[in-house]
């Protein structure tokens, strides 16, 4: 997707809380409310939904906390009132309806990692070279477009983010 989000960089929020040198990762938790969110009434995933970023990923200027899109306030289904946007990673990393953000010293286990560790990893960078075990990631259809196009590594944000993964085997660290 190429979505015009409205928000501010996560790093501004993190800077304001002055993380210590012990902080290595950021952990996010979403709302747990089966009453409002019927999908949470069954344990399809280990609710509440959690996500995480390495500290440098969280401090990257592209990582946004979004409060709106297309000039409107964020609707419920898009993660109201505030959500994460990590544009170089697969969409499920961009956690919605955030209720808690913690700075932690260990790599947090994310909801999808816990559910299917051989299919979803911590990093989940957009990577056409690494297939999902059951389907290919080599092509994509942008929302609003008809034909498919080749997927770009890091969703086309390689210039801004590739350096964070220099020397990492992205096939192992999917």
């Amino acid at each position: 997707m190429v979505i015009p989000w409205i928000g501010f960089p996560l790093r501004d929020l993190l800077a304001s809380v002055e993380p210590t040198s012990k902080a290595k990762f950021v952990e996010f938790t979403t709302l747990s409310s089966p009453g409002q969110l019927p999908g949470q009434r069954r344990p399809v995933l280990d609710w509440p939904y959690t996500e995480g970023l390495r500290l440098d990923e969280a401090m990257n200027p592209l990582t946004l906390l979004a409060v709106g899109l297309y000039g409107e306030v964020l609707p419920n289904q898009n993660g109201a009132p505030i959500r994460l946007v990590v544009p170089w990673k697969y969409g499920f990393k961009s956690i919605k309806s955030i209720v808690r953000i913690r700075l932690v010293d260990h790599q947090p286990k994310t909801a999808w990692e816990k559910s299917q560790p051989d299919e979803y990893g911590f990093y989940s960078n957009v990577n056409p070279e690494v297939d999902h075990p059951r389907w290919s990631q080599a092509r994509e259809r942008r929302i609003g477009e008809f034909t498919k196009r080749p997927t770009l590594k890091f969703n086309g944000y390689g210039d801004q983010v590739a350096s964070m993964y220099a020397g990492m085997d992205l096939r192992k660290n999917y």
Partner: protein
Amino acid sequence: MRLKRFLAKAPIFLMCLVPVVWLAWAAVQGRLGANPISVITKETGTWALRFVVLTLAVTPLRRLAGWNVLVRYRRMLGLFAFFYGTLHFVTYIWLDQFFDTASIVKDVIKRPFITVGFTAFVLMVPLALTSTTGWIRRLGGKRWQTLHRLVYATAVLGVVHYWWLVKADISRPLTYGAIVATLLATRVAFRLKPKVAPRRVPAPNTRAV
């Protein structure tokens, strides 16, 4: 007589067309959401599976409830399963793969859920082609019936295809699986029980014993 038969089947025929008519209307109206091709693929696939299930339900309902009239519609239901299966397959090769044969072949070989789905569809082709009474005559009733048991494989493979493509929520594939398993189990039960003729109105002039 033939016209009467045709008109009797028309309402069911029209009802079976509702899903595709709705889909076409919604697509034209732009009411399929942000990812319309995904919706079309899912809807056509689900209806193909539903029609296979309906087709498989005819014999058990006949045997258990005595609803012999359903047999009249079984071929129509089966052909609609093939119709929606074809739409589902065409949506995949056209709107998803844009007729990129190399890519399609690679998918069918490399992605188990596509292998299974493709097989389920392919197995329906001989059934559609031999669906006419002319073919029942040509093959002979017994051979025709054996061939048409392939629909059992289509049903099972269809469920597995669905199971293997969902991300985490298996509740729907599981439900269809339970339904298909039940419909197949009733057939096993019929086989094991001593032959009981389907209930029919006793002929007049039956001699009292």
